[in-house]
C-alpha cells in the first residue's frame, strides 16, 4: 500500500483516490461523517442543490426491487443559501474535494446557482438527469441540443470545472456525451437512475407515491458499465462512473471500462461505511493484481 499511487485527475484537479460519493445518497456528509473520516475519500458530492428550498415528492419515496432500489425523492433540499452557509463549511473541514450537484428548474436557475457557488467548491456537477421532477431534470438530459445549450450556458457561470451528469434513459448515450463535450463540459458523470416502476399486486397501487422512480443499485450495473465504456471510447473527457458499485471489484470494473473515478450511491443506503469499505477492497484488488498506479488501469479493458 505504501508505493501505491491512488491519485487520479479529473479536469486538472487531483483526487487523492478515485472513490467518490454519489449525489443524494450521502446527504451533505453530516450523518456519514459520524461513521468514518470523510478525508478518506477522493471527493464527496452534495445532495442536489436548487435555488430555493425544495420539498420533494410525497412519500413513500423508496421501494426495493431485485438487486435494485427505486427512489422518488424529487430533489428535496434546503437551497443554495443553506448549502453555502452550513453544509459547505462543514465539508471543508475534511481533506477531500467537494462536488456540488446542482439541479435548477431552469437553465437560468442553474446559471444562478453556479454563479453563487463561485470558487467555493472544487467541481460543479450539473444534474440534467433526475427522473423524479417535472421541471428540469431528465427533460434537459435527453435531447442533445438542449444538453449542448445548457452545458454551454452554465459553463459560462462556473469558476470551477463543470461535470455534466448524464441520464441513462436515452437512445444514444454517446450522442449526449458528445453534446456535453461540445458545450464545454470538463468531465462527465454517468449514470443517473433508470426510470422504473413497482406495483403492489395486492393493493394494485404503485409503491411510490410518485408512481415512477429512479432505479439504482447492482441491477443497473451492466447498463452503467456499458455506457461508461461507450462514452470513454468516443469522448475525450474524464468520467466519474457509477451505478451499482457495491464492492472494490465493482469499482475496478468501471475504471477498466474507462472511468477515472467512481461514485458510490445506493451502497451508502445499505451501510454507512460503504464508500470506505469499497475503497479498502479496491486497494486489495490493486495489490492482488500488482497494480501500482490506478491511472494504469483507467480504460484498460481488453475488448474484442
Amino acid at each position: 500500500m505504501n508505493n501505491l499511487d491512488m491519485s487520479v485527475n479529473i479536469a486538472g484537479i487531483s483526487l487523492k483516490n478515485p472513490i467518490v460519493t454519489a449525489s443524494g445518497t450521502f446527504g451533505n456528509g453530516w450523518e456519514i461523517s459520524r461513521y468514518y473520516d470523510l478525508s478518506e475519500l477522493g471527493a464527496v458530492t452534495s445532495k442536489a442543490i436548487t435555488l430555493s428550498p425544495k420539498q420533494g415528492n410525497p412519500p413513500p419515496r423508496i421501494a426495493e426491487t431485485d438487486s435494485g432500489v427505486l427512489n422518488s425523492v424529487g430533489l428535496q433540499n434546503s437551497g443554495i443559501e443553506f448549502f453555502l452557509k452550513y453544509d459547505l463549511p462543514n465539508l471543508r473541514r475534511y481533506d477531500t474535494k467537494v462536488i456540488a450537484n446542482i439541479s435548477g428548474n431552469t437553465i437560468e436557475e442553474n446559471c444562478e446557482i453556479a454563479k453563487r457557488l463561485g470558487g467555493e467548491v472544487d467541481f460543479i456537477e450539473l444534474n440534467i438527469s433526475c427522473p423524479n421532477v417535472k421541471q428540469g431534470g431528465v427533460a434537459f438530459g435527453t435531447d442533445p441540443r438542449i444538453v449542448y445549450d445548457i452545458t454551454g450556458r452554465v459553463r459560462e457561470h462556473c469558476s470551477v470545472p463543470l461535470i455534466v451528469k448524464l441520464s441513462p434513459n436515452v437512445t444514444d448515450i454517446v450522442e449526449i456525451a458528445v453534446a456535453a463535450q461540445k458545450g464545454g463540459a470538463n468531465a462527465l458523470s454517468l449514470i443517473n437512475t433508470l426510470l422504473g416502476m413497482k406495483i403492489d399486486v395486492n393493493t394494485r397501487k404503485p409503491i411510490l407515491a410518485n408512481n415512477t422512480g429512479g432505479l439504482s443499485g447492482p441491477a443497473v450495473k451492466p447498463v452503467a458499465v456499458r455506457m461508461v465504456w461507450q462514452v470513454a471510447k468516443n469522448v475525450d473527457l474524464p468520467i466519474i462512473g457509477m451505478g451499482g458499485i457495491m464492492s472494490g471489484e465493482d469499482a475496478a470494473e468501471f475504471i477498466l471500462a474507462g472511468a477515472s473515478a467512481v461514485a458510490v450511491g445506493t451502497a451508502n443506503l445499505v451501510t454507512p461505511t460503504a464508500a470506505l469499505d469499497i475503497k479498502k477492497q479496491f486497494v486489495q484488488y490493486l495489490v492482488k493484481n500488482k497494480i501500482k498506479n490506478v491511472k494504469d488501469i483507467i480504460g484498460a479493458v481488453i475488448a474484442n
Partner: protein
Amino acid sequence: MEKTHSCTIVKKTMLCPDTYDFVVNFPQEPKPGQFVHISCGEGVMLRRPMSVCDYFDNNLRFSFAVRGKGTKLLAQHSVGDKLDILGPLGTNFGVDKKGDGVSLVIGGGIGIFPLFYTAKFLGEKTEAILGFRTKDLVIMEDDFNAVCSKTHIVTDDGSYNCAGLVTDIFKERLQKGDITSVYTCGPRGMMKAVAEIAAENDIFCEVSLEERMGCGIGSCAVCVCKIKGKYLKVCQNGPIFNAREVDFDE
C-alpha cells in the same frame, strides 16, 4: 466513530403466528422509542427498521411481524446466527415530559413493541391500552402487566376482553382526570384518533411514525412525513414526533 454491530441471536420466540421475538447481543443502550436498522440477509439489500422492544444486560430485544421479503428472511434466522445491525437510531419518546399524573402507552398491533421499553422508563404510574385485531394476535400481555399498573386489552372483534378500539378505552380512562401524558404507536388512523383526543384534552402526546426507509441515518431523504407542513425525515427527525405537529392527512 459510530459503527454497525455484528450481533449474535441469543433467543428466538414466536409470539403469535408470523410474529417473532429476537434477543441479540447489542453493545449500545438505546433510548425508549428508538429503532435499529437490520440487514435481513442475502437477497434483500436494504435494511429493515425495527423498534427497540427491550434492552437489558447488553441484550437488545426486538419483535416483528412477517410482512414481505425482508421480514420473511429475517424470521428464518436461528439462535447463534449473526445479524448486522445499525443503531440505535432516531429520536426517543420524551419520558421526562410525562408530568406528575398517569402516563398512558397506547398501541395497536405491532405498534406495541416500542411501548414496552418506553413503559419501563415511565415508571409505576403507567397504564397500557393495547388493541389487537383478534384473540390469536394478543401478545405481550404479561410483559406489559409486569411494568404497567394496569393493562387494558381490546380486540376489534371482541374475541378477547371487550370489543372496541383503544380510543374507546382512552376516552373512558380520561374521565378520572389523572392522565398527563400519552405515548402512542400503531396504525396511522389509530394514532391520528389518539392524537386528536389528546389535543382536545390538552394532554402531552407523542407518536412514533413509520415510513419506508433507505439509509436509516438521515442521508438519503426518502423516509419523510409531513410535520408542520414540511417533509421531515422519520429516521432522523423522528420516529418520535409531538402529535400536535404531525400532518396526519398528508
